[in-house]
């Protein structure tokens, strides 16, 4: 017996429907059903943050959310971060300041960093590092990532 759940979810403002099994995660459905592959799988155990998304305004690891739990929820992924061709200031700064190497961790860092700046537009370096402690970069490019985040924060404040 394989009963599938029918879920309806708002992703980046658009309504999507999908069928999933109980053990499918939100990450599985985003990538494999909706083909939104910007959200990455790193560890699948909530340690690396590569699969970070916003769910009803809350930063979560999509590998630690069952897809069926996302029914009726609003999800924001990396695909919704730029406005058309206009990149978000965080994306621009990551490019300008080389805040990425292989790029696998980048969508997660961008989503988590945006959540930080929405809450705290002027974080200290230490606050930014603690907030992003759940995002791992195996190329170990942390300094450039932090510089990009703080620089984007300054720009967004008009400083």
């Amino acid at each position, binding site marked *: 017996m394989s009963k599938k759940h029918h879920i309806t979810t708002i992703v980046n403002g658009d309504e999507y429907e999908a069928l999933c099994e109980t053990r499918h995660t939100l990450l599985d459905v985003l990538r494999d059903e909706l083909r939104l592959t910007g959200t990455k799988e790193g560890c699948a*155990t909530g340690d690396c943050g590569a699969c970070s998304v916003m769910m009803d305004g809350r930063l979560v690891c999509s590998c630690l959310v069952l897809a069926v739990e996302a029914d009726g929820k609003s999800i924001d992924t990396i695909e919704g971060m730029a406005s058309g061709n206009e990149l978000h200031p965080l994306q621009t700064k990551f490019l300008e300041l080389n805040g990425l190497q292989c790029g696998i961790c980048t969508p997660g860092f961008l989503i988590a960093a945006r959540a930080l700046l929405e809450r705290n537009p002027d974080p200290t370096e230490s606050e930014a590092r603690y907030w992003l402690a759940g995002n791992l970069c195996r190329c170990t490019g942390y300094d450039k990532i932090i510089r990009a985040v703080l620089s984007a924060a300054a720009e967004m404040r008009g400083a």
Partner: protein
Amino acid sequence: MSDVRFEAPSSLSEAVKILAGAKGPSRALAGGTDLIVQMENDLLEPDLIVDIKKIPELRAIKPEGGGFRIGATVTSMEMIEDASLCAKWPGVIDGVKLIGSIQVKGRATMAGNLCNASPGADSVPPLVAAGALARIVGPNGTRESPVEKIPVGPGKTSLAPGEIIESFFLPERPRNSGDAYLRFTPRTEMDIAVVGVAINLTLDSAGVCTQARVALGAVAPTVLLVDECANALIGTRVDEAAIDKMAAAAAAACKPIDDKRGTREFRIKITSVLAKRVAQKALERARHTA
């Protein structure tokens, strides 16, 4: 692989009924930060998952009898964002803040941390030190249990089949009370406690300790509530001699394992070091709260 039945009832009575009727292994789902990892790693293959987050009374932090009632599905971030809870029970918040990343704290709950029954669970020692009560519901009705009675060994709890945590109660605090929790980890974030110590104490107007509770994490199969530690503080001005005696009692109570995170000897030594630091922190807070 067979599929798993999933239910998300909107009432507590319905959740209890579904869980009570389960034939195979079943799990309540709150934040899922342990449950989903265990399923992913095939450590757990439940037949039934009951998502309890649609039950309104499990979702809120409410004032009650001068204290707080915290629903089982309240997340760590929701607790950290509650200014009145942070002001009254900073030691409980110390523990909650140490649970995983921001992402994990956006989902993880104290009820899940307790029911996962890891000896190193960071929110458990401060809850025990606080004298928190868990309200448990199940097929035979509702009961209250001190938090320290719930874990009975690594991964094992005293909850009967079909029982779930409904909420926690943090009692009203007398004036001049303070609590604190510290853990030792090799890294500052994203790590599991090698040792954790929580202390909750109350002073009278002359600065003499009238009540104390000291709880140790990660140094025994379950959290330890150590009366000898409390007795070393009660009746004293929590001076250096009293703190040393309390720290020695904490070290004596440890029954730690040797593992990759720390040897037995190291954990015992660190317990007494942390106990002293936590006592100072709790004392500072007790002196600075009305």
